[in-house]
């Protein structure tokens, strides 16, 4: 039984999953995506949220960015950042937003659930001032 026929596919599976695990650990990637078979090990990326704050107006409520609303480039970047929670991804998203001289901040939040207390909360995963 030739080695390639027998082991190429399992080795490919392990190689792809190793890259995915590295990206999850060091790049903020969602466990649900990328061939690591990490579904149901954390909240689905659709539960993550991206908010835009105007830093010069701390009292103004932040706006939530959606992957279904806004210009196509922004929607694509939002969809990507929901799955890749990193400042670099937020930088790409910021580049698609309308220019504004006032400082702003993009934040990615994800839900958390404490089964002991029975409480749902959110934590800020990463942010980018621009």
């Amino acid at each position, binding site marked *: 039984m030739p080695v390639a026929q027998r082991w190429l596919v399992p080795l490919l599976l392990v190689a792809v999953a190793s890259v995915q695990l590295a990206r999850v650990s060091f790049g903020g990637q969602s466990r649900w995506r990328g061939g690591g078979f990490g*579904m149901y*090990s954390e909240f689905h990326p659709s539960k993550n949220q991206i*908010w835009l704050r105007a830093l010069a107006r701390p009292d103004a409520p932040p706006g939530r960015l959606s992957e279904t609303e806004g210009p196509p480039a922004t929607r694509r970047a939002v969809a990507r950042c929901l799955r890749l929670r990193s400042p670099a991804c937020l930088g790409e998203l910021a580049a698609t937003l309308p220019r504004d001289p006032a400082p702003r901040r993009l934040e990615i939040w994800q*839900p958390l659930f404490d*089964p002991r*207390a029975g409480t*749902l*909360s959110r934590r800020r995963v990463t942010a980018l001032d621009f």
Partner: protein
Amino acid sequence: MMRWTAPTPHRLAATAALLVQALIFVENFPFPWGLLLAAPALVLPWTASAWQAPIAWGLLALADVVPLLTRPLFVPNHLFLMTYVALALCLAGAGEGRGRLIAANARWILAGVMALAVLQKLLSVDYSGFVGFMIATGGFAEPVLGRGAAAAGALTDNAALAAHFLASVPVDGATQALRVPAGFAAYARGAAVGIIVVEGALAALAIFRPDRALFHIVYGGFLIVLGLVRSELLFLSALAMLGLLIACARPSRWRWLYVVILLVALPAAAARLARSPSSLSDALDRAGLVQKS
């Protein structure tokens, strides 16, 4: 009078793989490419021997790789799984040992998928909280928890509370209490551990005991429970196809268990695809036959 004869195990397994492949094309390619790719996949099993031609499976695997490379963050894991299966069917050649090679690859793919699922859960700090949230809001275990009216009411209330909370502006330290019974944390932890134990057992059985009845009982049970608690119909179909590929390695009646699961899951998956954003729903929408959800 013509007598119906059961298809050979390998033809049965290849047909299942092609049907799952066709639906995965429809799901992951835009209109009309998904349907164009699915068409030959649906025709192949009826031709004399094309379904076991390595070149056919090689081309299907190549087509699978396109969305994996162009949209890796957006494609589902069952597309990865299908790619591995198509590649294994290509590499198995057309010789005498094809069935054994396919089964060997299928059980290593299954073992890899289950071992990775366990590893990801062990590495995730949010895992037990996520399981608790899913139970508390009816995300899964609803068929079990939702029997009593009180439990169903709590699940609905919790889902509404969670949706309302998550729609609000996020504030550090803000929390939303959900309605959970006393001892809920232990129940959630037990469910979380139970999932890991079953998936770990399946990985071990796929490696060491794939030809034993125990493997098919545990795996068949896992697939049935998965189908009852979550509507992951295409992933369920892909997993059932793996079971069929394993069961077809030698004469065994267990293959009919996977055929039955596929007979339920595949039409349901096709119906779901017809209504969700996919090349099939685009085509049906254009023809005025189905309104997309």
